[in-house]
């Protein structure tokens, strides 16, 4: 019901566009540092773990680069990034909308004649659908750099071998899957969070619960759809 109303024709395109740009900045610029930090460590940990696992085996060491790359593209960049964004961006959206509901901002807009579901939800969803795949792309690159920094300077593997691994067995379909996942997860985390915030009732305790629920439900749905996408596209 909320989505049906949210995806109706904007009253004025320019106002919605301005709000969408604001949301893009909030989601994108506001999340760059946390996404970068998490990604660099994800890549580093993956590289170190695989270097340890492969040590003394017959598996060539350049496989570390290959595994870090595919792990980043297929799983860690889209899924872990979106789980983190559900915590950061999702809880923020739920709290923002819930606060607006409690302070009668939404009522004020309704009385002005604004389609509040559209004005408050649609720009967030559009912004997330554009910005989150970009963040996921950055995350994948940073994870690969993190892997490089963790194993190459320490001498566990040479730079040439790591690079050879990055180029080995490349399947473009994995990149497609990364973008499919990031779009689906972006949609889930924004709509679930907006729903929780938009319909909040009561006081600060309920607002806190809505914010928590936004994160919990988003995470459950992201992980469920992660499995479904993997099963459908790789099965």
């Amino acid at each position, binding site marked *: 019901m909320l989505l049906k109303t949210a995806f109706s024709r904007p009253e*004025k395109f320019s106002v919605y566009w301005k709000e969408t740009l604001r949301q893009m900045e909030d989601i994108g610029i506001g999340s760059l540092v946390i996404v970068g930090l998490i990604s660099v460590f994800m890549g580093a940990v993956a590289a170190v773990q695989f270097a340890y696992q492969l040590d003394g085996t017959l598996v060539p060491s350049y496989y570390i680069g290959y595994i870090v790359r595919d792990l980043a593209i297929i799983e860690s960049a889209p899924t872990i990034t979106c789980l983190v964004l559900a915590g950061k961006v999702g809880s923020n959206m739920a709290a923002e909308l819930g606060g607006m509901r409690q*302070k*009668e901002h939404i*009522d*004020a807009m*309704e009385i*002005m004649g604004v389609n509040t579901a559209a004005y408050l939800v649609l720009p967030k969803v559009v912004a997330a659908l554009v910005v989150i795949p970009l963040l996921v792309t950055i995350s994948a690159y940073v994870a690969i750099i993190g892997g490089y920094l963790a194993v190459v300077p320490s001498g566990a593997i040479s730079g040439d071998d790591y690079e050879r691994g990055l180029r080995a067995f490349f399947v473009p379909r994995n990149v497609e899957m990364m973008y499919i996942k990031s779009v689906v997860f972006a949609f889930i985390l924004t709509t679930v969070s907006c729903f929780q915030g938009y319909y909040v009732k009561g006081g600060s305790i309920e607002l806190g619960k809505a914010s928590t629920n936004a994160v919990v439900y988003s995470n459950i749905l992201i992980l469920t759809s992660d499995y479904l996408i993997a099963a459908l596209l790789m099965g």
Partner: protein
Amino acid sequence: MIIAKDIFKSFDETEVLRGISMEFLPGKTNLIIGKSGAGKTVFLKILVGLFEPTAGHVWYDDIDFFSLDKKQKREIRMKVGMLFQGSALFDSMTVEENVGFPLDMFTNMTQKEKLHRINEVLERVNLENANDKYPSEISGGMQKRVGIARSIVMQPRYLFCDEPNSGLDPKTALLIDELIKEITYENNITTVINTHDMNSVMEIGDNIAYLHLGQLAWTGNKNDVLESDNELLQSFIFASPFLQRLREQALGE
């Protein structure tokens, strides 16, 4: 004119409004008064369409509001302004952006025209030079005035005010009352004010409706209040011994 007819409202098993019928006249300050829990806010929210009544009708002139579809309701709402108890100003916007929000959303005015209209209404509420301030940077009384400016920027035909004086000192409350009264008279607006401020009752009560336990218990104007023998109204308005003595002096008892 706004007419409410046989309005009932229940939340689950609790009946909050029990058959209220009332007329709100244009060019008049129409006050709804009553104790906390009497149903004033629920009634006001039904009048503006934020709540749907369990039974009953609300007419804006000759249009039955609750028979309209969403799009038609929005058209009516373009003619409605509302001042909220907590002002409901958008925190992330400046005073100018708050007042200009309805203009941005619903008009095709140029930037220059918008700024002219914004400054005009800000001047009307005596708030020049506050354009760039955020709501958190101005006082409660100023926030109310920004709220009034935003509610009249689209030149509404109907103005609703929910507890316009709550949280204000008596002097500022009088200024806000005076402002609402002047705007009502100047523009021949149908103004509905929900209040339990006795100064408002005695100063700007052109039409007063007293609600008690979800029912209409008394109607009249500010001149009728002193002489009314309605015990419910008297016990509400002259609740303190001080006001009771003033009433007795005024009536020469």
